[in-house]
């Protein structure tokens, strides 16, 4: 079976009914999609399949043979964040971070198809995603900001260290 994962063609040896989540995490070492429940109930495993957000834990490999898979690793990296990633960071939309990958992929897809500018739109589109830490308010704000083009990526990426860690610095404009 074949997949294109974040732009790279891959040949797979996993059996055909292996979940896409297991293929990504165990065979390919792409660990951003998480095993939150493996029942399709939490959204932590959501990836894009040919641009559409789907639960990787419910998708058998054989059903996506030949498809293009996008995960968080394909959205952007610490020196080049996509708008939705920068918005999540700026708005503190991640606390423990475990649900974040799934939220990012679904949010990215929502914004790509022109949505996410209202609270109702975000809540409906992300209704399959569970977060136990943030209470969702910051997530909705982040998606709205990204959808409305109100993102300050250059401020968020101050002083990157080699592992993507940031040096502490004040965000310009905040009270000293």
């Amino acid at each position: 079976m074949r997949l294109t994962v974040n732009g790279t063609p891959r040949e797979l040896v996993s059996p055909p009914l292996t979940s896409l989540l297991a293929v990504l995490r165990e065979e390919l070492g792409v660990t951003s999609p998480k095993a939150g429940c493996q029942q399709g109930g939490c959204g932590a495993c959501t990836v894009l399949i040919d641009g559409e957000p789907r639960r990787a834990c419910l998708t058998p490999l054989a059903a996506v043979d030949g498809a293009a898979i996008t995960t968080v690793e394909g959205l952007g990296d610490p020196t080049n964040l996509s708008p939705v990633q920068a918005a999540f960071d700026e708005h503190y939309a991640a606390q423990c971070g475990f649900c974040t990958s799934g939220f990012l992929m679904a949010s990215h897809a929502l914004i790509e198809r022109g949505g996410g500018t209202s609270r109702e739109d975000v809540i409906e589109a992300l209704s399959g995603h569970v977060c136990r830490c943030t209470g969702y308010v910051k997530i909705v704000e982040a998606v709205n900001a990204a959808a409305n083009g109100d993102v300050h990526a250059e401020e968020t990426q101050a002083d990157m260290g080699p592992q993507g860690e940031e040096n502490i610095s004040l965000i310009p404009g905040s009270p000293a």
Partner: protein
Amino acid sequence: MKAVGARLPRYDGIAHVTGRTQYVDDVRVPGQLWVKALRSPHHHAAITHIDTAPAEALPGVHAVVTCADVPHNVYGHLEALGVPADEPLLADGQVRYKGQPIAAVAADSEAIALAALEAIDIRYEERPAVFDIRQGLDPGAPEIHHWGPVYPHFGPHNHRRVRKGDVEAAFDAADTIVEGVYRPQAIEHCPLETQVSLVVPEANGRLTIYSCTQAMYFSLGVVSAHLEWPLNKIKFVGGTVGGGFGGKVDTATETVCALLAIKSQKPVKWRFTREEEFLASSTRAPWHVEIKDAVSKEGWILGRRTLTLHDSGAYSRFSPYGLTKHAFHHTGAYTIPAVSFDGFVVYSNRVPTTAMRGFGVTSVSLAVETHLNRVAQVLGLDPLELRLKNANRIGDTTGNRVVMHDPSTVAVTLAAAERVGYELGDEYRDMTSERRTGELLPEHLAGQQAPEGEHLIVHSATTNGGH
């Protein structure tokens, strides 16, 4: 102090949004085995027969462990303080809650590990179970532990006690007695990341334990105690916890994985399924709180009697600690000069309960605040004004005789009232936290007020002893 008041980025924010944050399940070690546990299907039963040999014989199974493999099977965190433990790492002869782990398997795949569990030959004899702790205290209730239905180690008592002032006199002097019963229920932490650990046996005989624990040094101690290994042979690697909320202090997987890693000499990982997380991992405890207040018609709380039953589940774990915190806060943010508190840690055949955000205190806060609303309703008084009147002030003492130096009850209540546009009488709007005087210092509160400069009032009868 440039950071105070500044808007700083989270140090882990970029890693979170780029998928680079490493959780235990993201750690990749070659040759890693998968762990599954055989869990009790019964709430309460004797194990009459167990044979793991058929499981060990399955191709792809590298190790199976039971209680026989654990050097120190029953360990509790208060052992070092001379308090006997009551919970086995792996069940020994009986099970006391549905989901209790009995044996664990390390195998090449999850599927093989699951098949190995089915191959274990085990037989049970069911026993009657207790689910309602009130019934658990009845004479003739099914026995869960041989020493009785409650945790017995609160100094010389089998319950936590707080005594202060003359409660009898308070009740005699009351215009009204207001009673209430409050029963907050169990809550599952439900973190997005389930319990998980990965243990790697190193060539030099040490163990590296990748753990989702919220309490690294604590878990290090637990593993060391069960294995009877020195601390310096065990290395814990923590990192980002994918949500804990108090549920990841129980060292739920590390020790079993350590045993399997030692036995198989291969890295082993145990990741709870979501089902295991719901059914077998600890929860916040259910509580039963009975409050009886002696009140005056002007709205003074003259005295309070409290009875708390804490549902510990099948084993005591941290429940005595949670109950103690609960006891300290049973007067809430309010000054009550005469109190009598009794709290019991009661066993049931449920999953052992543990900490969750505000361990022991959220339950008593719910009870106390709801009860105050009830008092206000009975007396026909405004619930916020009732609170402001009884609020902790500088120089007031708590039930366990700690002197208040900087209580914020009045300030916070007034600020909240203003924010939501809640109308208060003038005298209430002008209230402060200053030492009680005049109308705010009626006779029944004079005795509990500490002399200026005092920090703690120590009596010959201790907080946990007394009458």
